[in-house]
């Protein structure tokens, strides 16, 4: 009896394999299942299935997108949308691979970090012509347009803007009678004053792991202040890199002090997860982050224990800020470009974009939405305040056009960690950074 059972399953198995090997041997596809190919129905009433992939995935955000998509499908009964949500850590690798293999894909999430790469390989359709005919485009802010523009063309409609601000433990500062810091000097001093390793309290949520470059980049720019070329922010107006000046050395020395005297030793390896967790779990007092952490802070912390402030400024009283963003792109090999654009336009309309921004914690892309009470109060308020002080907070264009941009994060992390751990000097590290950008510039010429 048992033998019979085994035999049966064996037969099934063997025949399955036989079929598989046949398919493989002939080298043409079997019945494709599950890929959303459009039903080759007759004429007008056919349904189109769009495939869309997100990059900055998390379970709540996916749920939100699905709600938006449901509404879109309701309004467009002949369009179905299949949302692909890979885990955040592997999402970009998956998107890259799908694009390289020309897998069916209509809408994808590009990031300011990788849009140049996608454009380089011809994966994306320019959106200028579509946007020209889109009535909601008028209210899209210039910052949002800029972030989605590469090589003079628009390649993604941003789904929300990111901009750094400072989060701090209001209760701890009050307890110690410390003012909210306005400059980096003040920030370091406040952070040192709040550091108490015995009680597992530290001043600053340092980030020496993945994404470590954001704080040193910002500090070096703020210290170089007016000499920085705002259209090419890793270089001075003179053409040298921002890392080559005495101001840069002063900034980085302060940065090293911030780590050594006011941050958990462990944080040399932290990425944003650890950095944010340390803040929410009451280990650190200051955190420099984008508004999309606000949801985490609201969830995990007591009301009133924390607050937000404008970014610190450099010795010249200036700070250079830039908005980052990710957004929806149209795949150049999409077979349903019109429908795909319809979806992008829907997701990007003022109503949907505002819902999404509130839910995910970004600044909406429509000037009309920024006036919403929600963004004029609470933790978002300081962001808006910064944009209202253009003399102090100078806007620059992020360097998405350099192909080397993708490798900068890794190089900065590794050399930076060596410096923080005392295996390399500040001068040598700055020299490496200077070399990197000098070479990056040469490669573009």
């Amino acid at each position: 009896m048992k033998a019979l059972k085994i035999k049966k399953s064996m037969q099934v198995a063997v025949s399955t394999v036989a079929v598989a090997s046949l398919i493989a041997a002939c080298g043409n596809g079997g019945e494709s299942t599950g890929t959303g190919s459009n039903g080759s129905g007759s004429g007008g009433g056919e349904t189109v299935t769009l495939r869309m992939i997100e990059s900055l995935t998390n379970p709540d955000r996916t749920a939100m997108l699905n709600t938006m998509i449901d509404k879109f499908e309701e309004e467009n009964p002949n369009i179905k949308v299949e949302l692909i949500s890979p885990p955040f850590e592997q999402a970009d690798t998956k998107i890259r691979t799908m694009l390289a293999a020309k897998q069916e894909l209509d809408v994808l999430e590009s990031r300011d970090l990788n849009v140049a790469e996608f454009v380089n390989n011809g994966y994306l359709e320019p959106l200028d012509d579509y946007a020209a005919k889109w009535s909601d485009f008028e209210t899209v802010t210039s910052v949002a347009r800029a972030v989605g523009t590469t090589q003079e063309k628009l390649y993604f409609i941003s789904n929300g803007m990111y901009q750094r601000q400072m989060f701090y433990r209001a209760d701890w500062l009050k307890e110690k009678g410390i003012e909210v810091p306005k400059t980096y000097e003040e920030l370091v001093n406040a952070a040192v004053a709040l550091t108490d390793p015995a009680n597992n309290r530290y001043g600053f949520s340092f980030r020496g792991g993945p994404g470590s470059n954001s704080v040193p980049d910002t500090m070096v720019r703020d210290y170089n202040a007016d000499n920085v070329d705002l259209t090419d922010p890793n270089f001075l107006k003179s053409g040298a890199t921002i890392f080559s000046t005495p101001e840069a050395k002063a900034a980085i020395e302060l940065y090293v002090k911030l780590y050594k005297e006011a941050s958990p030793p462990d944080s040399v390896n932290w990425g944003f997860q650890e950095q944010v967790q340390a803040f929410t779990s009451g280990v650190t007092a200051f955190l420099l982050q984008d508004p999309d952490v606000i949801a985490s802070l609201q969830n995990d912390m007591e009301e009133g224990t924390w607050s937000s402030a404008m970014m610190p400024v450099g010795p010249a009283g200036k700070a250079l800020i830039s908005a980052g963003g990710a957004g929806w792109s149209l795949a150049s090999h999409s077979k349903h470009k019109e429908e795909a654009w319809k979806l992008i336009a829907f997701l990007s309309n003022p109503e949907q974009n505002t819902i999404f921004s509130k839910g995910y914690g970004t600044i909406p892309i429509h000037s009309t939405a920024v006036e919403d009470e929600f963004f004029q109060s609470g933790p978002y308020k300081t962001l808006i305040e910064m944009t209202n002080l253009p003399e102090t907070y100078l806007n620059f264009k992020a360097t998405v056009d350099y192909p080397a941009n993708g490798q900068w994060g890794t190089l900065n992390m590794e050399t930076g960690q060596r410096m923080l751990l005392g295996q390399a000097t500040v001068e040598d590290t700055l020299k490496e950074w200077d070399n990197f950008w000098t070479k990056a510039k040469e490669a573009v010429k």
Partner: protein
Amino acid sequence: MTKTRVLLSLKVLYLSLHLILMVFPLYWIVMTSLKPKKDIFSFPLHYWPQQFTLENYINIFKISKFHVYIGNSLLVSVLSAVIVIAISILSAYVMARFTFRGHKQIMMAFFSTQMLPGFVSLAPLYLLLAELDLINTRFSLLILYTVGLIPFSTIMLRGFFQRIPSSLEEAAMIDGCSRLGSLYRVILPVMLPGIASTFIFAFVQNWNELFAAVMFIDSESMKTLPVAMNSFIMKFDVDWGAMSAGTVLSVIPTVILFAFAQRYIVEGLTQGAEKG
């Protein structure tokens, strides 16, 4: 007498120490999964939750379709393990019973697959499966998981075959069974423990596989458990509550399987280790 006593207490001590070291991480994950989110990140750490809650478990079923993922993982893992056993029994039997030209090379081919670093093949595999139109099908995982396990299973099962005297099937063949018939009716029953341990090994490998499942499956309806678990690693934090709840759920089947079958495993391997 006292010497044996001392020995015995040393043994008990050693075993207890080992038990604590092995069980503690699991204990900690279970405790984490039963704590409310606020308590997971609060000082001092509590080794026994101050309030038990199932919110982490409820959450993972609410925000993601965990039952679907568990079903998918079970389906692919079991099916692939069955096919692996079926194919490997045939190849292992032949490699154990016959010598022929190329025998040694084939054995080497099986063994050499164990040395190939997986990531070298990732991009070419994606392109190959794309050409075959198998991306985003369960079939892709089924094939890859199966292929990945055939060599090791063949090597393992071959060891078991070598321990069974060939007189067994010869007797059956004289009785009019075909070679395959004698294989099913006479040898496999004798080898069951060995087959069980190979099956469990294959199942466990499939159940845990992450990268192929991330790359080759797009649709929610076909996602597997490790991929879903990986989704709790987000941009700003790891949702340790959800992560531990998911871990507990994903460990349960393997631990149950293991607890039930481990007598088989040891027995099977013991049988395999006897010198023929």
